[in-house]
């Protein structure tokens, strides 16, 4: 009997301590039937990717509100590449100005979710991407 669940890692890289969005997403994705691994604050890119590999997640969600989204996401992408884990879907949420969305997508981020995004939109996006 197949018992597959989509597994998602939610992490806050850097030192930004605003957890509201990350926590809402964690709760929301759980209620959408996902298994959510919540790693909390101040995660280094190494920690995030190492956790993602051990937990064999389908998706990594980064929440960044400090404005450091470009450099922090870049580091996570680099870590994923050097670990040969480019198949893991990467999404970013937080305060991301319009012009940076394109830069993030260019790095390989599949989805960028800013203020006003509903959890159901995020859940749907992930389901579609993972099951595509």
């Amino acid at each position: 009997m197949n018992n597959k669940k989509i597994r998602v890692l939610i992490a806050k890289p850097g030192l930004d301590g605003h957890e509201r969005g990350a926590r809402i997403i964690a709760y929301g994705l759980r209620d959408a039937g996902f298994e959510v691994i919540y790693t909390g604050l101040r995660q280094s890119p190494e920690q995030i990717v190492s956790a993602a590999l051990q937990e064999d997640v389908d998706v990594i969600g980064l929440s960044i509100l400090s404005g450091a989204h470009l450099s922090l996401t870049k580091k996570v992408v680099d870590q994923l590449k050097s670990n040969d884990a480019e198949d893991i879907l990467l999404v970013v949420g937080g305060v991301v100005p319009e012009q940076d969305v394109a830069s993030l997508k260019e790095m390989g981020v599949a989805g960028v979710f800013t203020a006003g995004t509903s959890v159901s939109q995020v859940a749907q996006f992930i389901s579609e991407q993972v099951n595509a």
Partner: protein
Amino acid sequence: MYKGARVETIVSISWETLLDGVKKGNVRSLARIITLVENREPGWKDAMKSLYPLGGKAKIVGITGSPGAGKSTLTNAVARDFVARGYTVGIIAVDPSSPFSGGALLGDRLRMRDVVTLPEIFIRSMATRGALGGLCQGARDIARILDAFGKDVVIIETVGVGQDEVEVVKAADLVMVVCVPGQGDGIQALKAGIMEIADLYVVNKADREGADEVVADIGGMLDISDNGGRPQPPVIKTSALANQGITELVDALVQGFESGRNADSWQAQRVKEEILTLVETEILDYLRENWERTGDLDKAVEGILEKQTDPYSVVDSLLPLIREASRSKETT
């Protein structure tokens, strides 16, 4: 360019490649095998068959206790100490699945900050998934895979509530029960099934008021309990956050590895239970699949609700399927 292409990878990587990866110490292969076995993907049993002979060396420690007892923090401290002594450690952190959505919020990792990046440590969060296929079996499978991977010690940390944890720790060689001061009712709860399986008691947060009372309470309960002639389990005081008492605790665990419940009769009992669990799951899965396909189950439910029959008669009428199931097993 970075590209999310998960599905292709799953399909393209075969069991053989993954098993080979595990044998070579590849962490991703290990993680993926765990997923596939946990999901009961086709071929999982064959994978377990080929992993089984590789294991048998790891010592499996079960950690249980009420929520808020500091189990994750303790796991962190214990794992760190094991690594310092030259052991490699696998950690299985169990959290409950939501009964409504089937999803889960797995947050134990976040309390294991000191060890998350150590190369000697592999941490896997596991949801109870409605105990499909037996929660104990799920944890046992993962522990076995970690064992085959070469981990010296596997720690299973339970949810900390209800019958589930009693189930999970059955997969362990040594069971450690964590208590804290200020949770009087927590000790009461221990009486329900945990006392029989505990090999070691830990009073965590022992820097708090009332720690000695908890030690005394446990001692009192042990005095009056019947533990089948085994030696009295030790009670150890720790403060995981301040890293106090951890050396003593790990000493006790190591000693337990040597002297623990290795009696043949107990091992045999455990193997027997595992076989029965696996068989039970297989049969139930088979039956459910069949009943759902044929619609017999729905029809039976309808019949009972309309008072045309009763659950007992339904069971008897459905039983032939079991015989069919056993026949089909023989042929595959």
